[in-house]
């Protein structure tokens, strides 16, 4: 079981679904959510400048692509930059409804993206990820 997981999605229902499925399948202890890329980045920034460095960081991010303010790709560009190098061990799983083959190809360019999965999140999907990360 993971300690902390970050779900980035603008759809509250999707976030609700994520939480429920993750809890049900005991995938992670703590679930943090962000409504878009910018919110997620500010979460990491707060974490960086927080005095209490012992604060644990998420081990996995579920990332949606299509979001207002800052989408998934823009988030990945920032997150991949040297500015966020201290978080470069965090793995990302793109969780999207897109069917555009170009998106799939694009995702392969980011080293932290370990998988590209189609919504909805399911228990079998989490089982599969659990195996993959071990």
């Amino acid at each position, binding site marked *: 079981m993971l300690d902390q997981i970050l779900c980035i999605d603008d759809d509250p*229902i*999707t976030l609700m679904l994520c939480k429920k499925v993750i809890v049900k399948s005991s995938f992670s202890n703590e679930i943090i959510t962000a409504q878009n890329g910018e919110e997620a980045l500010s979460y990491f920034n707060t974490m960086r400048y927080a005095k209490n460095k012992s604060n644990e960081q998420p081990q996995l991010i579920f990332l949606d692509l299509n979001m207002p303010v800052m989408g998934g790709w823009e988030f990945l560009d920032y997150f991949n930059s040297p500015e966020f190098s201290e978080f470069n061990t965090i793995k990302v799983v793109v969780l*999207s*409804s897109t*069917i555009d083959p170009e998106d799939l190809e694009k995702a392969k360019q980011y080293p932290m993206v370990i998988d590209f999965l189609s919504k909805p999140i399911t228990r079998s999907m989490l089982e599969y990820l659990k195996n993959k990360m071990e």
Partner: protein
Amino acid sequence: MKSKTNQVIIIYIVISMFVAIVSHKLLAQYISDPNHQFYIFTKDILFIFLTGIIFKLILSKNDNRNISIFKKLKNTNDEIKESNEKYDIVAKATSDTIWDWKIQEDSFSWNKGIENVFGYTENEVGNSSKWWFDKIHPEDSIKMSIRLYSFIEQKTENWQDQYRFKCANNSYKYVLDRGFLLKDENGKAIRMIGAIQDITKQKEEEQRLKLLETVFTQSKDSIIITEANSFDGKIPNVIYANPAFFSMSGYEFEEISGRSADPFNSPNSDRNELEKLLSSIKNKQECLIETISLNKKREEYWVRFSMIPIYNSENELSHWISIQRDITDEKKQEKEKEQLIRELTQNNKDLKQFSYITSHNLRAPLSNLTGLLNLLEDIPVENQELKEILNGFNKSTHLLNDTINDLVKVIIIKDNPSIQKEAVLIKEIFENVFSQLNFQIELYKPIIKLNFEKVSIININKAYIESILLNLLTNAIKYKSESRKLKITITTREIDNTVVLIFTDNGIGIDLERNKDKVFGLYQRFHNYPDSKGLGLYLVKSQVETMGGTIEIESEVNKGTTFTLTFKNKQ
């Protein structure tokens, strides 16, 4: 002859001597004085000798004159003889037909040419001028006779004319007839002699050249003939240009003759094309270029311009031919076409993007619904009505999900005009497909006959062929006949370079007479089944065609359906 003169002289002398001696003897009887006798005799003898000598002189002089006259006559005779011989030889050798017309008597004679050239036999040839005139082509005859008689009247020395002369086989030959008049001492024309030359070949060649010339004069394309050599690295100077060039460029012949007709005279002319042309000229190579050019009115037009080097029989460059065409309209259309293609490409791209976004936006809430329904599975529902409602909700959601997924597949196929293919074992494909349909196969236990002995490997996209077979098998199971056991036969065969896959079932079939055009269409349903979406065959056809194959259907209601899929086996 000389000896005869001498003979005459000697005879004269002998006779005179004889007379002198006889008269001397006779006189001797009457005259007794021997001195006197001797004196007279001596005088006679002297006289005879003297006259003899004078005689001889006169005669031999005469003789000499006669000899020289005779010689002259002989020479003249020889010359005439030779000249006659020459004439005969020439008349025989020349292809000309020679005629001789004694005008007063209207007697007309021909040499052998009338037989050799025009094919008449000796008997056929007439001996009056009428025969001659009759053989002249009716269209030429009046014109020719007017000219001939006016020549005879004016009595100039030479005459020539061209006309068509009839041959023995009724065809006509073009001839050149040249003649001259012989006049009597009063200047009256009494005789005319002419020579007819067969110029049919020249005339035909002339006509052929005239015909060929129409290409040059009538062509809508501009044609320019230039000198072989260029000066100062320019385009060679114009020798000749056709009317189309003048109407295209607006220039007169005098304005361009002997100059370099440079099509690169606009500031917008293509410099690269000019370089290309000049280097071709330098290397004596054929060249085709296109550029903007200016006409005389300084208006721009697009010209397609070729230069072709022409070599003579000694294989030396003799001149260049340049063919040019105004392609302004063509260029305009091309530009419009390009613009259209650009717009269409952009539209297509936008639409593609639109379809991806739409499908994304549809899929996002739908995935939430599926996810939520998945969660419901673990929660026990006591209320029976609620359970029914949730059940319906669940079914509809999954059907919607399937539809959206099929549509998504279609979008992806349509976006991928060419797909990667690989050699796949047909058996392996079927194993995969059957394992996916395991539940339905167990349920209905259809008889499935597979025959892949002929072809076992096929060059195809694995995911697509699996999807195709999955669809066809699902259809066969879905639309099986209730009254008989489902039987499916799948055979592969190789025909030429293609692999044919034949898929036959004994199901309820499709009424093709009514639905022939629609059978592979989008959202076409032929049976009122709750879970049919009208997408399967459309998807199958799309996938088959994306792989470069074809699909055909044969079906009879209540008998069954056969699908024939054809794929190219080689790339």
